[in-house]
């Protein structure tokens, strides 16, 4: 896939989704910022479209920018050896993003990790619970407002 093809894809998507999509990188750094409500649509399109076939979800993570949390999807097309980044943002008052597990089952653990450490709820996820921290853990440590010094263990009572 050439750089022109990938730019064509970006313009095609822009024409279809208009205000819901923003092109934030081109060519080798192709990147899209999309509204959460049309995320499953766009991810599904990128995966199944014959011309592009982004059939691999390489990486899924999220970043806390204080006013909002940005969920980042790094996709890769095995047949065409091309990468693309898709991002979506959700405000702190409503941390919800549609789950990508129906499109890529590989999103399962990664979404659980994002939920565990940043508190983003992925709607439609089959088994959204903590994965690295214990179930009764309070808070989401990768938030910028979470300080490690207030994570003190509860006082351990001596047994003897």
């Amino acid at each position, binding site marked *: 896939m050439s750089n022109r093809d990938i730019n064509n894809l970006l313009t095609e998507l822009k024409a279809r989704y208009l205000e819901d999509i923003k092109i934030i990188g081109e060519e080798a750094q192709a990147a899209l910022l999309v509204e959460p409500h049309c995320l499953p649509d766009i991810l599904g399109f990128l995966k199944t479209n014959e011309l592009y076939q982004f059939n691999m979800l*390489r*990486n899924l993570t999220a*970043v806390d920018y204080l006013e909002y949390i940005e969920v980042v999807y790094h996709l890769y097309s095995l047949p065409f050896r091309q990468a693309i980044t898709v991002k979506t943002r959700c405000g702190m008052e409503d941390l919800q993003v549609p789950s990508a597990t129906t499109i*890529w089952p590989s999103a399962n653990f990664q979404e659980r990790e994002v939920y565990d450490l940043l508190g983003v709820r992925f709607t439609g996820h089959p088994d959204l619970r903590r994965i*690295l921290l214990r179930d009764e853990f309070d808070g989401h440590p990768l938030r910028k407002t979470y300080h*490690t010094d207030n994570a003190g263990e509860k006082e351990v009572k001596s047994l003897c």
Partner: protein
Amino acid sequence: MLKTETFTLNMGPQHPSTHGVLQVVLELDGETVVQAIPNMGYLHRGIEKLAESRTYAQFIPYTDRLDYVSSMGNNLGYCQTVEKIMGIKVPERAEYLRIIMTELNRIASHLIFMGSLAIDLGASTGMMFGFRSRERILDLFDMACGARQTYTYIRFGGVSADIPAEFIPALERFLTDFPAMLDEYHRLLTGNEILYHRLKNTGVISAQRAVEIGLTGPALRASGVDYDIRKVEPYGIYDRFDFSVPLGQVGDCWDRYTIRMEEMKQSADIVTQALNEMPEGTVMASVPKVVKPPAGEVYHSIENPRGELGYYIVSNGGTNPYRLHVRRPSFINLQVLNEACQGLLIGDVVAILATLDSLMGEVDC
């Protein structure tokens, strides 16, 4: 009428076959596996959170502790990510040293895989042999950087020090001995009928499913998918070497085993080529004392022994990363465990866990 019901068995977190503190909750119908749910987090250290309060250079030693049997690869992936965002050019000699070290580390890691697979299936001699040969590689690393496991050898702009004079003769001796060692393992394990029947057609994962579930590394290539980052997106100077990427056909435990055995041979070839072509010169570019990458973000991945190791760094122009995420292949590969084990016996779970070769230091991060 006999009433039967399934029961739950906890395998781990303290179990010799789970390769660290992994718990697998098995739902069993007699001895047949109905579900195998991995439960992780026992080794979680919050490395991604720690990164945000460390400078870029201070984070290198933490990468050693991710996949602690292939630390060179972890160093390399992280340093290349920072170099990419800062636009640092690495001297030729350092590039070659990096290739030599990471490929040796791949052999060392696969030897551990071979050894632990053997002992998991009851062949303790296999483990002794694997660890014996790995010792030779650890001695080489010891010469180069003074550490046997946590190297921090690869740094921003190059490597921490040039190799000492005794390194190259020792490496050449190892490369001469290695084909015979590999032959011995093939005679000991590959030709073993019990091992063959335990692994063949066990835990089959189709190519399509392997991609969907996010497998990478030897586990993905065993299913026949040609995805090796050294080939598809060559990083460093991998495009200069002549090597092949072994692929499997069935995607069973046997393929995952034979592929890693073949990869060791290819890695030894790459090391030989690198050794012959390595130029003289400096091993460190001039890098600012305080590393402050420009604001922006980058995702960079390399082919580690267990799969695609990716680093996603968001910089705000400061001395510490704003956000650092590590895409750990072991973590994502573990997702396939449940479906690969269904309908098989408990003994097969051990074989599948061993051939997926997940390492808990990396899973829990």
